[in-house]
């Protein structure tokens, strides 16, 4: 087969590795969309901005504990702390958003919560702009934990963990991937095994019937927002660690791509979100590598539109039957 570019296996594998890492991040964001949509049939446009706030929280913890150049505690607990803080903050934010912007609108025409969600998204973005300014903040994960940061000696996160030929895999990529897998497993177990998980499934099938069966649906919905937002918060810190830059507008595009992942995989389906995330991540990485960065976003959007037109319920979704 003749390719316009000479096929380069190393480049391909490198893009694959990057794509999988990026994809797991999108998968985490996708889950939040998917869960909320499954339970409320609401497109939570503000979800990407919750992720952004998570990233800023991680940055805040990093700064409070001495900053990337001279952290006051060891790097492993530092990163754990960043994750925990971001997840809690994002989770609480999600609950607050649900309580104040969506819950009063449960019985309103369907367009009302969507517009409210747009408003929340816009509010959060610009609040971040007001509070943190327009400049990019950097996690500086490149030198985080490095022995000689002033000489730009790579820290343990980005120093290549192993290099095969020219493909290099960084510790941070391994951390991102394993954290994602762990969170997914935990979530699957939570939904399949626990009482609140069963309540969530019941509520998403039929909210009214669930309420009549004695399920406190308000609490279930709040919990869903909390869990979804926690995952987004984790994704925010991952983004900061991977790309070292955090800014007020980052949630918009990431949110769009997370949503794409959710839809491509089949909204409401957890394995679907994972699959969709990987596909979107790979598509973005490959398009960026082979077509140039300016085409990567358009490729992702193109995939979404194609999937929606060919299979509106997504790859792993099921088509719902409505009784007339």
């Amino acid at each position: 087969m003749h390719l316009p570019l000479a096929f380069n296996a190393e480049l391909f594998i490198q893009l694959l590795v990057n794509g999988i890492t990026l994809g797991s991040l999108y998968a985490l964001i996708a889950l939040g969309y998917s869960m909320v949509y499954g339970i409320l049939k609401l497109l939570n446009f503000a979800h990407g901005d919750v992720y952004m706030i998570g990233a800023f929280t991680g940055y805040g913890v990093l700064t409070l504990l001495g900053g990337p150049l001279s952290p006051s505690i060891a790097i492993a607990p530092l990163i754990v702390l960043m994750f925990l803080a971001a997840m809690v903050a994002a989770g609480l934010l999600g609950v607050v958003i649900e309580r104040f912007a969506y819950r009063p609108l449960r019985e309103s025409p369907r367009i009302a919560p969507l517009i409210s969600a747009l408003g929340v998204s816009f509010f959060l973005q610009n609040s971040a702009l007001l509070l943190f300014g327009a400049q990019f903040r950097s996690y500086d994960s490149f030198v985080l934990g490095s022995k000689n940061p002033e000489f730009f000696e790579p820290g343990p996160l980005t120093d290549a963990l192993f290099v095969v030929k020219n493909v290099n895999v960084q510790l941070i990529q391994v951390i991102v991937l394993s954290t994602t897998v762990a969170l997914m497993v935990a979530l699957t177990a939570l939904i399949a095994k626990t009482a609140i998980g069963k309540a969530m499934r019941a509520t998403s099938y039929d909210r009214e019937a669930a309420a009549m069966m004695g399920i406190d649906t308000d609490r279930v919905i709040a919990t869903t927002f909390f869990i979804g937002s926690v995952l987004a918060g984790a994704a925010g810190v991952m983004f900061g660690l991977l790309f070292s830059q955090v800014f007020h507008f980052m949630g918009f595009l990431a949110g769009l791509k997370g949503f794409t992942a959710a839809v491509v995989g089949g909204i409401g389906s957890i394995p679907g979100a994972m699959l969709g995330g990987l596909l979107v991540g790979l598509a973005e990485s490959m398009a960026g590598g082979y077509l140039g960065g300016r085409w990567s976003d358009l490729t992702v959007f193109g995939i979404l539109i194609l999937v929606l037109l060919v299979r509106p319920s997504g790859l792993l979704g099921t088509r719902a039957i409505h009784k007339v």
Partner: protein
Amino acid sequence: MATGEDKPRVGVDDWVASVQDRREQRSGLAGLARRVDDVVPAWARLALFAVVAASLPLWMDRGDLFAYGIFTLVYVLLGLGLNVVVGYAGLLDLGYVALFGFGAYSYALLSSEHYGIHWPSAVSIPLVVVATALLGLLLGLPSRRLLGDYLAIVTLFFGQAFVVFVNAANPTVRGKGLTGGPNGIADIDPNDLFGYELTTRRQQYWFILAIVLLVLVGLHFLSESRTGRAWRALREDPLAAEAMSMPVNRLKLKAFALGAGIAGLTGCVFAAVLTAVTSGNFALPILITIYAIVVLGGIGSLTGVVVGAIVINVSFQFLAPENPQNNARILFYLVIVLLLMLSMRPLWRLAVVLAGTVAFGLAAHVLAEAISPSWTAGAVVEGGRFAGLISDWVIIPSGHDRFANGAYIALIVAILAVTRIRGVWRTLSLVPTVYLAAVVWETSFVEQPAVARWILFGALLVFLMTVRPQGLLGTPRVEIV
């Protein structure tokens, strides 16, 4: 502000149970506006608007006519187009602003120095309108299969793709970038009436006003026609509409195309008035603004769009960075008092809150100064006549970097808390909240009016949806699921 919690829920027909809400809908200032809207016939409203709007250039200077007059009219047009798609047909189109951009860029390509093509408006405008309508039709194609929310996301992607295309992709055509990348396209010709170029602000304003009036009349007739009724029917229940002989998919496409055509038309006049276009003119914030206009006025109401556009654009221009901040400040405080007036009855409570806020502020100011003079040493930004008053009342520190951010977060928490508290405690908790709002204005918003403007917009959308989802002039809608 009735939340649904203490109403009877079981055993009572929803409609009967919500009678109190409906009574409230008709009381107060917003209710009054609605009743006036109901009583005054459509032609009288139109005539009033036409006369007042046409007289604007007679007493406004050029700059104001541009900022307040022309921009408001552009927003009216944009709102009217979106209203067809969202208000009449109930289709959530988040790619609308890209159609506006497509119109503007197309006009720019056909009538500017960019490629040296200078087609007269009589040719380029109809061409662009038709092309945009066709693009709208294409954008609407997924609506045949996708339900509301999916449609929203696909159209949002389309909007985003447009910005990326114009800004970054910028393919090379005939030796230069088609869309000019981040620089956009400059030196766009003014609109012309069969050769007579409209170069002064007055001429442009009257030209756009004429278009607005024509579109208003046309849409009014259309909404009272079989097509308008069919749109509303499909918004209510697409399946029933289909079963009642309405070709739902074709009707959706018609709505998309008409809305797009109006957006394209607006793009033409907008590009000509601005004489330059860049992608930033067609990004998400503008989309939010148009939605705010349609939603504020009341989805589906033509008068509502006009009112919404006036309210939004005037406050928008007040908050513009170029505008003296004192005007924005007056508006800000006025709106707070107005909001309190709307939500507080009996009125003596309002008096208590206002007096309390003043007293609270003076006390807080004295206290802060006693702790350290630096807490009150900050300067009032563009205080004008009020500088002295403000600096004696509002805590504006000098040097304490985190204070402004802390006050902002505290304000958000306070507002959220107020919505949860009832009775006397709400009245009491309003006092520090209002004062905090003043502090945030003087320490943060006044420094970054552009950001403040968008924050207030976002908050407005949420507030409006939770309090009055039908907008100022819309009818409350009932959905029985």
